[in-house]
Each structure stands twice: as structure tokens, then as C-alpha cells.
């Protein structure tokens, strides 16, 4: 995998998911049999209070942390390309907060890698959300479920694929 196969970007404009997905495939080569793409969106609160978010980050450290997470994913699974684009600043209900995309020969590696990247991003990348609603603004609290999700990658070193892939398997 070439160095350019892993790409991180922080931007304060809307994320064009279709363009990111296409660019990811463009740098994956013709061995790509699986592409998994995740998008996190500003969602409505169950009680209807949220109108948007403001996202603060730690410039410099953010890019470094995301790059480290992609490199860790690429070290664990046989990936062809991977990318993260994270938005900062103000965004409205329904807008994209983050895009994560991965390509691999087989789907299991691609699924595991995207879940891993999101679990680590949620607990280790320096971003902070402030929810903006009718009743004013408030900082969003960290979720215990995100910390639990991150823990599952801490235990078993690298053997994290759910199923064995035998060498003579030619198909995805």
C-alpha cells in the first residue's frame, strides 16, 4: 500500500461523500473487492431540541491522531486504501460530520477497519461537539458506549478478523 493510500482531512465546509467515495476507489487499484463507507450526521434529538452543532478541534494534533488511527488500521488488516474527512465549525441538522472510507480485497477486513477507525476516532481524536438548540448551547457529553466500543480492540492484539480467510479463497 502506498503512503497516499491513507488520507486525512479536516475542513469547515460540507463533506461531499460521493466525491470522497470515488476518490477512495480511485486510489485503491483493481484488487478492491469491497468498499465500506461510513457517514456520521447531525441527528435530531429524541426531544427535538437540536438544530445544529458547533465542532471545535485541536489543530495539528487532530490530523496527527487521525493519521495514527489510519496507520494502526492498515497495520491490522490488509487494506488497499483508507480515508477520514472530519468537518469542524458550524453545521445544521442532517449535515455530515465525518466520513470514513476503506477498501480491501475482502469485506471482513473493510468492515473491521471502518469500525475500528470510528471507535478510536470517537475516543482519541481531539474534537468536541457543542449542540445548538432552541434552549441555547451545551457541550455534548462523552458516551460510555463509545469507551466500551474502543475497549474491544485493546485485548486481542491483531487477530481481530471474525472469520479465517484461507489462502486459496479467490473470491470476495
Amino acid at each position, binding site marked *: 500500500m502506498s503512503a497516499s493510500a491513507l488520507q486525512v482531512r479536516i475542513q469547515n465546509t460540507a463533506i461531499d461523500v460521493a466525491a470522497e467515495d470515488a476518490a477512495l476507489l480511485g486510489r485503491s487499484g483493481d484488487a478492491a473487492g469491497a468498499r465500506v463507507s461510513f457517514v*456520521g450526521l447531525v441527528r435530531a434529538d429524541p426531544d427535538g431540541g437540536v438544530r445544529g452543532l458547533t465542532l471545535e478541534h*485541536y489543530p*495539528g494534533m487532530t490530523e496527527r*491522531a487521525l493519521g495514527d488511527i489510519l496507520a494502526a488500521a492498515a497495520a491490522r488488516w490488509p487494506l488497499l486504501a483508507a480515508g477520514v474527512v472530519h468537518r469542524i465549525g458550524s453545521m445544521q441538522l442532517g449535515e455530515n460530520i465525518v466520513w470514513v472510507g476503506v477498501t480491501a480485497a475482502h469485506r471482513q477486513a473493510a468492515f473491521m477497519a471502518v469500525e475500528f477507525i470510528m471507535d478510536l476516532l470517537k*475516543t*482519541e481524536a481531539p*474534537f*468536541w461537539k457543542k449542540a445548538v438548540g432552541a434552549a441555547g448551547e451545551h457541550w455534548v*457529553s*462523552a458516551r460510555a458506549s463509545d469507551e466500551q466500543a474502543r475497549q474491544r480492540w485493546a485485548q486481542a492484539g491483531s487477530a481481530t478478523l471474525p472469520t479465517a480467510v484461507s489462502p486459496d479463497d479467490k473470491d470476495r
Partner: protein
Amino acid sequence: MRLAIKYFARLREQLGCAEETLEVATPLRVTELIELLQQRGEPWRGQLCDPVLMVAVNQCMTTRAQKLGDGDEVAFFPPVTGG
């Protein structure tokens, strides 16, 4: 030695400070830097005793036991909530 210190998100708002440069006399650990800052009284004393506060030195997540050196960039912030 000289340290660059940054504060983010809720902590930045509660301290009313985004970043500062501090001259300290002796080598010290993160935990000793926190004690030094808490000597300013409130809101520093209360805000910096929060055990869930995260700390990064030179843009890498670390623990309160880490030793600091001249020119280090130290950042304090609440648990992250991106994605």
C-alpha cells in the same frame, strides 16, 4: 524552562483561557504542572482536579506521570466527542 499550554472546549470556556506561555523553574511532571496551575485559585483549582480531564504533550495523548521538557506543548481538555 518554557511551556506552551492550551485549553479546549468546555475547559477553555470555564477557565476563560485558550492558551498561555508559562515559565517554570525546574523540570516537572504533568501532575506537578496541574498543582502549580491550581495555586491560582478558582476556577483553576476546581476545573483542573476533574479526573476525566485528558492531557496531551506535544500533540500526543499521555498520562499525568509524563515528564515535561523545555518548549513542550501541553494541552488539557475534556473527553473527546467527535465523529
